[in-house]
Protein backbone atom coordinates (compact mmCIF):
# COMPACT_ATOMS: atom_id res chain seq x y z
CA UNK A 1 0.00 0.00 0.00
CA UNK A 2 1.57 3.28 -0.99
CA UNK A 3 1.36 6.23 1.34
CA UNK A 4 -1.52 7.97 -0.40
CA UNK A 5 -3.76 4.96 -0.10
CA UNK A 6 -3.84 4.92 3.69
CA UNK A 7 -6.20 7.87 3.90
CA UNK A 8 -8.12 7.04 0.74
CA UNK A 9 -11.75 6.31 1.54
CA UNK A 10 -12.26 4.25 -1.62
CA UNK A 11 -9.35 2.01 -0.74
CA UNK A 12 -10.78 1.54 2.74
CA UNK A 13 -14.21 0.62 1.42
CA UNK A 14 -12.72 -1.68 -1.23
CA UNK A 15 -10.87 -3.61 1.47
CA UNK A 16 -14.16 -4.29 3.18
CA UNK A 17 -15.09 -6.75 0.42
CA UNK A 18 -15.22 -10.32 1.61
CA UNK A 19 -12.94 -13.10 0.46
CA UNK A 20 -13.25 -16.80 1.29
CA UNK A 21 -10.60 -18.26 3.59
CA UNK A 22 -9.95 -21.86 4.49
CA UNK A 23 -8.78 -22.32 8.03
CA UNK A 24 -6.24 -25.08 8.47
CA UNK A 25 -6.90 -25.48 12.18
CA UNK A 26 -9.86 -25.66 14.50
CA UNK A 27 -10.97 -22.35 15.88
CA UNK A 28 -12.93 -22.16 19.14
CA UNK A 29 -16.39 -20.73 19.36
CA UNK A 30 -15.14 -17.99 21.68
CA UNK A 31 -13.22 -16.38 18.87
CA UNK A 32 -16.50 -16.01 17.02
CA UNK A 33 -14.99 -15.84 13.60
CA UNK A 34 -18.15 -16.16 11.60
CA UNK A 35 -20.08 -13.85 13.85
CA UNK A 36 -22.66 -16.30 15.12
CA UNK A 37 -20.70 -17.98 17.89
CA UNK A 38 -19.97 -21.27 16.17
CA UNK A 39 -16.65 -22.95 16.19
CA UNK A 40 -14.81 -23.49 12.94
CA UNK A 41 -13.54 -26.94 12.12
CA UNK A 42 -10.25 -27.32 10.30
CA UNK A 43 -10.43 -27.09 6.53
CA UNK A 44 -13.74 -25.29 6.53
CA UNK A 45 -14.41 -22.11 4.63
CA UNK A 46 -15.24 -18.73 6.17
CA UNK A 47 -15.78 -15.43 4.41
CA UNK A 48 -13.71 -12.66 5.95
CA UNK A 49 -13.19 -9.05 4.93
CA UNK A 50 -10.05 -8.45 2.93
CA UNK A 51 -8.34 -6.33 5.60
CA UNK A 52 -8.45 -9.31 7.95
CA UNK A 53 -7.80 -12.02 5.42
CA UNK A 54 -4.71 -10.44 3.93
CA UNK A 55 -2.73 -10.41 7.17
CA UNK A 56 -4.03 -13.76 8.36
CA UNK A 57 -2.97 -15.35 5.08
CA UNK A 58 0.56 -14.04 5.41
CA UNK A 59 0.86 -15.12 9.04
CA UNK A 60 2.84 -18.16 10.05
CA UNK A 61 2.22 -20.03 13.27
CA UNK A 62 5.15 -20.59 15.65
CA UNK A 63 5.56 -24.14 14.35
CA UNK A 64 5.91 -22.88 10.78
CA UNK A 65 2.48 -23.79 9.44
CA UNK A 66 0.10 -21.45 7.71
CA UNK A 67 -3.03 -20.38 9.46
CA UNK A 68 -5.34 -19.93 6.47
CA UNK A 69 -5.31 -20.25 2.73
CA UNK A 70 -7.13 -17.86 0.47
CA UNK A 71 -9.44 -18.58 -2.41
CA UNK A 72 -10.42 -16.35 -5.27
CA UNK A 73 -13.71 -14.62 -4.43
CA UNK A 74 -16.81 -15.47 -6.41
CA UNK A 75 -16.77 -12.06 -8.05
CA UNK A 76 -13.60 -13.00 -9.90
CA UNK A 77 -14.45 -16.61 -10.56
CA UNK A 78 -15.04 -18.46 -13.76
CA UNK A 79 -18.70 -17.60 -14.12
CA UNK A 80 -18.18 -13.86 -13.94
CA UNK A 81 -15.19 -14.07 -16.24
CA UNK A 82 -17.14 -15.96 -18.83
CA UNK A 83 -19.93 -13.37 -18.81
CA UNK A 84 -17.31 -10.63 -19.03
CA UNK A 85 -15.95 -12.27 -22.13
CA UNK A 86 -19.39 -12.68 -23.60
CA UNK A 87 -20.70 -9.19 -22.96
CA UNK A 88 -18.75 -6.78 -20.72
CA UNK A 89 -21.36 -4.08 -20.73
CA UNK A 90 -24.18 -6.16 -19.34
CA UNK A 91 -22.64 -7.14 -16.01
CA UNK A 92 -24.08 -5.39 -12.97
CA UNK A 93 -21.01 -4.51 -10.94
CA UNK A 94 -23.10 -3.04 -8.17
CA UNK A 95 -24.31 -6.53 -7.35
CA UNK A 96 -21.17 -8.46 -8.19
CA UNK A 97 -18.60 -6.22 -6.51
CA UNK A 98 -18.97 -2.44 -6.22
CA UNK A 99 -15.20 -1.98 -6.10
CA UNK A 100 -14.45 -4.50 -8.80
CA UNK A 101 -11.34 -2.87 -10.24
CA UNK A 102 -9.83 -1.57 -7.03
CA UNK A 103 -10.36 -4.78 -5.12
CA UNK A 104 -9.12 -6.77 -8.10
CA UNK A 105 -5.83 -4.90 -8.14
CA UNK A 106 -5.41 -5.54 -4.42
CA UNK A 107 -5.75 -9.27 -5.08
CA UNK A 108 -2.66 -9.28 -7.28
CA UNK A 109 -0.32 -9.48 -4.28
CA UNK A 110 -2.26 -12.16 -2.53
CA UNK A 111 -3.34 -14.62 -5.17
CA UNK A 112 -1.29 -15.77 -8.08
CA UNK A 113 -3.54 -15.52 -11.09
CA UNK A 114 -2.08 -14.70 -14.46
CA UNK A 115 -5.41 -14.12 -16.12
CA UNK A 116 -6.76 -11.58 -13.68
CA UNK A 117 -5.01 -8.40 -14.91
CA UNK A 118 -5.89 -9.15 -18.52
CA UNK A 119 -9.51 -9.80 -17.64
CA UNK A 120 -9.84 -6.56 -15.70
CA UNK A 121 -8.22 -4.60 -18.48
CA UNK A 122 -10.44 -5.99 -21.18
CA UNK A 123 -13.61 -5.40 -19.23
CA UNK A 124 -12.52 -1.90 -18.29
CA UNK A 125 -11.77 -0.89 -21.86
CA UNK A 126 -15.04 -2.21 -23.21
CA UNK A 127 -17.15 -0.53 -20.56
CA UNK A 128 -15.21 2.70 -20.66
CA UNK A 129 -16.18 3.26 -24.26
CA UNK A 130 -19.82 3.03 -23.35
CA UNK A 131 -19.43 5.26 -20.29
CA UNK A 132 -17.67 8.02 -22.18
CA UNK A 133 -20.21 7.79 -24.95
CA UNK A 134 -23.10 8.40 -22.58
CA UNK A 135 -21.45 11.04 -20.43
CA UNK A 136 -20.04 13.15 -23.23
CA UNK A 137 -23.11 13.30 -25.40
CA UNK A 138 -25.30 14.53 -22.60
CA UNK A 139 -28.36 12.46 -23.38
CA UNK A 140 -30.33 11.87 -20.24
CA UNK A 141 -32.58 8.98 -21.23
CA UNK A 142 -30.31 6.70 -23.17
CA UNK A 143 -28.20 4.26 -21.25
CA UNK A 144 -29.85 4.63 -17.84
CA UNK A 145 -29.82 0.87 -17.28
CA UNK A 146 -26.15 0.67 -18.00
CA UNK A 147 -25.45 3.47 -15.57
CA UNK A 148 -27.01 1.45 -12.78
CA UNK A 149 -24.43 -1.26 -13.32
CA UNK A 150 -21.26 0.74 -12.83
CA UNK A 151 -18.77 0.14 -10.07
CA UNK A 152 -17.25 2.98 -8.06
CA UNK A 153 -14.26 3.64 -10.31
CA UNK A 154 -16.49 3.81 -13.36
CA UNK A 155 -18.87 6.12 -11.55
CA UNK A 156 -16.06 8.59 -10.89
CA UNK A 157 -15.09 8.54 -14.54
CA UNK A 158 -18.68 9.08 -15.56
CA UNK A 159 -18.95 12.08 -13.25
CA UNK A 160 -15.77 13.51 -14.75
CA UNK A 161 -17.21 13.15 -18.24
CA UNK A 162 -20.43 14.84 -17.21
CA UNK A 163 -18.62 17.74 -15.59
CA UNK A 164 -16.51 18.37 -18.64
CA UNK A 165 -19.61 18.39 -20.86
CA UNK A 166 -21.28 20.89 -18.55
CA UNK A 167 -18.20 23.12 -18.58
CA UNK A 168 -18.13 23.02 -22.37
CA UNK A 169 -21.75 24.04 -22.54
CA UNK A 170 -21.14 26.89 -20.14
CA UNK A 171 -18.24 28.09 -22.21
CA UNK A 172 -20.26 27.97 -25.37
CA UNK A 173 -22.98 30.11 -23.84
CA UNK A 174 -20.40 32.45 -22.42
CA UNK A 175 -21.61 31.70 -18.95
CA UNK A 176 -18.12 31.05 -17.72
CA UNK A 177 -17.62 34.77 -17.54
CA UNK A 178 -20.46 35.27 -15.16
CA UNK A 179 -19.67 36.21 -11.64
CA UNK A 180 -21.76 34.20 -9.29
CA UNK A 181 -22.54 34.71 -5.64
CA UNK A 182 -20.65 32.39 -3.35
CA UNK A 183 -22.95 29.73 -2.01
CA UNK A 184 -21.58 27.57 0.72
CA UNK A 185 -24.65 25.63 1.73
CA UNK A 186 -23.58 22.10 2.31
CA UNK A 187 -22.17 21.39 -1.09
CA UNK A 188 -19.04 22.29 -2.90
CA UNK A 189 -19.71 25.88 -3.85
CA UNK A 190 -19.75 26.95 -7.45
CA UNK A 191 -17.41 29.88 -7.46
CA UNK A 192 -17.17 32.45 -10.14
CA UNK A 193 -14.94 31.55 -13.00
CA UNK A 194 -13.79 34.40 -15.10
CA UNK A 195 -12.15 32.95 -18.12
Amino acid sequence: MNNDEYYDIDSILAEHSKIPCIFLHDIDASVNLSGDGNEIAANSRVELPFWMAKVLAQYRLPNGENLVTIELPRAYGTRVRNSLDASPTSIDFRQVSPYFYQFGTKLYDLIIDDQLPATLEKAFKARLKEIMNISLTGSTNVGQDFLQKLDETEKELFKAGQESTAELRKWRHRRRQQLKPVSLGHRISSQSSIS
Partner: protein
Amino acid sequence: MSSMMGESSYKLAKEAKRTSDMLISTYNDDLVQNVCREIRMLHARAEASVRGMRNSNTAPPNVPSQLTQIMLHHLTIKRNKRILFAYHHQRLEKLKELSWGIGRQSQERQIKEALSKEENDFLESYGDLVNNYKSHFLDIDLGGNGGVGLDPPLDLFIEVRVLRDAGKIITEYGELNLTKGNQEFVRRSDVETLIKAGYLKHIA
Protein backbone atom coordinates in the same frame (compact mmCIF):
# COMPACT_ATOMS: atom_id res chain seq x y z
CA MET B 1 -16.94 -11.28 16.74
CA SER B 2 -15.50 -10.52 13.37
CA SER B 3 -18.82 -9.33 12.09
CA MET B 4 -19.64 -7.31 15.17
CA MET B 5 -16.27 -5.70 15.53
CA GLY B 6 -15.45 -3.14 12.93
CA GLU B 7 -19.06 -2.31 12.16
CA SER B 8 -19.06 1.17 13.65
CA SER B 9 -15.91 2.04 11.78
CA TYR B 10 -17.40 0.71 8.55
CA LYS B 11 -20.40 2.99 9.08
CA LEU B 12 -18.01 5.88 9.61
CA ALA B 13 -16.18 5.06 6.40
CA LYS B 14 -19.45 4.97 4.49
CA GLU B 15 -20.42 8.32 5.91
CA ALA B 16 -17.09 9.75 4.83
CA LYS B 17 -17.77 8.49 1.33
CA ARG B 18 -21.28 9.91 1.38
CA THR B 19 -20.13 13.37 2.42
CA SER B 20 -17.09 13.45 0.18
CA ASP B 21 -18.69 16.03 -2.10
CA MET B 22 -19.95 18.33 0.60
CA LEU B 23 -17.76 21.03 1.95
CA ILE B 24 -19.19 21.08 5.44
CA SER B 25 -20.93 18.14 7.06
CA THR B 26 -21.93 17.51 10.63
CA TYR B 27 -19.33 15.85 12.81
CA ASN B 28 -20.55 12.44 13.79
CA ASP B 29 -19.40 12.50 17.38
CA ASP B 30 -21.38 9.40 18.42
CA LEU B 31 -19.83 7.11 15.84
CA VAL B 32 -16.36 8.39 16.54
CA GLN B 33 -16.78 7.80 20.26
CA ASN B 34 -18.12 4.30 19.56
CA VAL B 35 -15.11 3.44 17.48
CA CYS B 36 -12.73 4.75 20.13
CA ARG B 37 -14.52 2.75 22.81
CA GLU B 38 -14.25 -0.35 20.66
CA ILE B 39 -10.52 0.16 20.26
CA ARG B 40 -10.02 0.40 24.00
CA MET B 41 -12.09 -2.69 24.64
CA LEU B 42 -10.30 -4.76 22.03
CA HIS B 43 -6.96 -3.63 23.38
CA ALA B 44 -7.89 -4.69 26.90
CA ARG B 45 -9.03 -8.10 25.66
CA ALA B 46 -5.95 -8.67 23.57
CA GLU B 47 -3.71 -7.76 26.46
CA ALA B 48 -5.57 -10.17 28.74
CA SER B 49 -5.22 -12.98 26.20
CA VAL B 50 -1.51 -12.42 25.76
CA ARG B 51 -0.98 -12.29 29.50
CA GLY B 52 -2.99 -15.48 29.89
CA MET B 53 -0.92 -17.28 27.30
CA ARG B 54 2.33 -16.15 28.84
CA ASN B 55 1.44 -17.04 32.40
CA SER B 56 -0.13 -20.44 31.94
CA ASN B 57 2.08 -23.27 33.08
CA THR B 58 0.30 -26.02 31.23
CA ALA B 59 0.27 -26.18 27.45
CA PRO B 60 -2.56 -23.94 26.21
CA PRO B 61 -5.53 -25.83 24.76
CA ASN B 62 -5.56 -24.48 21.23
CA VAL B 63 -2.69 -22.28 20.23
CA PRO B 64 -3.85 -21.43 16.70
CA SER B 65 -7.25 -20.46 18.01
CA GLN B 66 -5.89 -18.14 20.67
CA LEU B 67 -3.41 -16.64 18.28
CA THR B 68 -6.20 -16.06 15.79
CA GLN B 69 -8.22 -14.26 18.42
CA ILE B 70 -5.37 -11.96 19.34
CA MET B 71 -4.62 -11.28 15.69
CA LEU B 72 -8.26 -10.51 15.04
CA HIS B 73 -8.37 -7.99 17.88
CA HIS B 74 -5.16 -6.40 16.68
CA LEU B 75 -6.30 -6.17 13.09
CA THR B 76 -9.60 -4.65 14.08
CA ILE B 77 -7.84 -2.04 16.18
CA LYS B 78 -5.62 -1.15 13.26
CA ARG B 79 -8.60 -0.96 10.92
CA ASN B 80 -10.54 1.30 13.28
CA LYS B 81 -7.52 3.54 13.64
CA ARG B 82 -7.14 3.82 9.88
CA ILE B 83 -10.77 4.74 9.39
CA LEU B 84 -10.67 7.34 12.15
CA PHE B 85 -7.63 8.91 10.53
CA ALA B 86 -9.16 8.90 7.07
CA TYR B 87 -12.42 10.45 8.32
CA HIS B 88 -10.71 13.28 10.13
CA HIS B 89 -8.19 13.79 7.36
CA GLN B 90 -10.93 14.26 4.78
CA ARG B 91 -12.72 16.81 6.95
CA LEU B 92 -9.55 18.75 7.63
CA GLU B 93 -8.67 19.01 3.96
CA LYS B 94 -12.08 20.52 3.32
CA LEU B 95 -11.64 23.02 6.13
CA LYS B 96 -8.36 24.09 4.59
CA GLU B 97 -10.06 24.55 1.24
CA LEU B 98 -12.71 26.61 3.01
CA SER B 99 -10.16 28.95 4.53
CA TRP B 100 -8.36 29.56 1.26
CA GLY B 101 -11.09 29.64 -1.30
CA ILE B 102 -14.31 30.92 0.11
CA GLY B 103 -13.83 32.67 3.36
CA ARG B 104 -16.35 32.05 6.02
CA GLN B 105 -18.12 35.23 6.93
CA SER B 106 -21.54 34.49 5.55
CA GLN B 107 -22.55 31.32 7.33
CA GLU B 108 -20.33 31.20 10.36
CA ARG B 109 -22.92 29.97 12.78
CA GLN B 110 -23.93 27.02 10.60
CA ILE B 111 -20.33 26.08 10.12
CA LYS B 112 -19.60 26.32 13.81
CA GLU B 113 -22.45 23.99 14.69
CA ALA B 114 -21.45 21.36 12.19
CA LEU B 115 -17.90 20.99 13.41
CA SER B 116 -16.44 19.54 16.56
CA LYS B 117 -14.64 21.77 19.01
CA GLU B 118 -11.20 20.71 17.84
CA GLU B 119 -12.15 21.34 14.23
CA ASN B 120 -13.39 24.82 15.09
CA ASP B 121 -10.09 25.56 16.78
CA PHE B 122 -8.26 24.28 13.74
CA LEU B 123 -10.37 26.41 11.40
CA GLU B 124 -9.61 29.54 13.41
CA SER B 125 -5.88 28.96 13.72
CA TYR B 126 -5.57 27.96 10.09
CA GLY B 127 -7.61 30.98 9.03
CA ASP B 128 -5.23 33.17 11.01
CA LEU B 129 -2.25 31.56 9.30
CA VAL B 130 -3.79 32.15 5.88
CA ASN B 131 -4.63 35.77 6.66
CA ASN B 132 -1.16 36.30 7.98
CA TYR B 133 0.25 34.97 4.74
CA LYS B 134 -2.07 37.05 2.62
CA SER B 135 -1.19 40.17 4.57
CA HIS B 136 2.22 40.10 2.96
CA PHE B 137 0.63 40.40 -0.46
CA LEU B 138 -2.16 42.90 0.03
CA ASP B 139 -1.90 44.13 -3.56
CA ILE B 140 -2.73 40.73 -4.94
CA ASP B 141 -6.13 39.30 -4.25
CA LEU B 142 -5.49 35.66 -3.48
CA GLY B 143 -9.12 34.77 -3.25
CA GLY B 144 -11.36 34.00 -0.32
CA ASN B 145 -13.35 36.35 1.86
CA GLY B 146 -15.28 37.91 -0.97
CA GLY B 147 -12.38 38.63 -3.25
CA VAL B 148 -12.38 37.35 -6.77
CA GLY B 149 -9.09 35.57 -6.89
CA LEU B 150 -6.34 35.27 -9.39
CA ASP B 151 -8.44 35.02 -12.57
CA PRO B 152 -8.03 38.14 -14.74
CA PRO B 153 -11.22 39.98 -15.78
CA LEU B 154 -12.38 40.19 -19.38
CA ASP B 155 -14.17 43.51 -19.52
CA LEU B 156 -14.07 46.82 -17.72
CA PHE B 157 -17.79 47.54 -17.39
CA ILE B 158 -20.54 45.02 -16.79
CA GLU B 159 -24.32 44.93 -16.66
CA VAL B 160 -25.80 44.10 -13.31
CA ARG B 161 -29.30 43.81 -11.94
CA VAL B 162 -29.94 44.76 -8.34
CA LEU B 163 -31.44 41.96 -6.28
CA ARG B 164 -31.52 43.65 -2.91
CA ASP B 165 -31.50 47.26 -1.87
CA ALA B 166 -27.98 48.35 -1.19
CA GLY B 167 -28.47 52.08 -1.05
CA LYS B 168 -25.80 54.50 -2.10
CA ILE B 169 -22.38 53.05 -2.78
CA ILE B 170 -19.44 55.42 -2.95
CA THR B 171 -16.72 54.31 -5.33
CA GLU B 172 -13.47 55.82 -6.53
CA TYR B 173 -15.19 57.21 -9.58
CA GLY B 174 -18.41 58.51 -8.08
CA GLU B 175 -21.62 57.38 -6.50
CA LEU B 176 -23.90 54.49 -7.31
CA ASN B 177 -27.49 54.26 -6.26
CA LEU B 178 -28.64 50.67 -6.01
CA THR B 179 -32.36 50.10 -5.69
CA LYS B 180 -33.97 46.76 -6.18
CA GLY B 181 -34.95 45.89 -9.73
CA ASN B 182 -32.74 48.43 -11.44
CA GLN B 183 -30.28 47.50 -14.09
CA GLU B 184 -26.97 49.32 -14.08
CA PHE B 185 -23.91 49.48 -16.25
CA VAL B 186 -21.07 49.68 -13.78
CA ARG B 187 -17.37 49.25 -13.44
CA ARG B 188 -16.49 45.69 -12.70
CA SER B 189 -14.01 46.31 -9.93
CA ASP B 190 -16.55 48.25 -7.89
CA VAL B 191 -19.23 45.65 -7.80
CA GLU B 192 -17.34 42.36 -7.67
CA THR B 193 -17.70 42.02 -3.93
CA LEU B 194 -21.39 42.83 -4.07
CA ILE B 195 -22.04 40.23 -6.73
CA LYS B 196 -20.25 37.64 -4.68
CA ALA B 197 -22.30 38.55 -1.66
CA GLY B 198 -25.53 38.20 -3.57
CA TYR B 199 -26.72 41.81 -3.72
CA LEU B 200 -26.32 42.10 -7.48
CA LYS B 201 -26.68 39.73 -10.35
CA HIS B 202 -24.30 39.75 -13.25
CA ILE B 203 -26.10 39.73 -16.58
CA ALA B 204 -24.03 38.22 -19.36
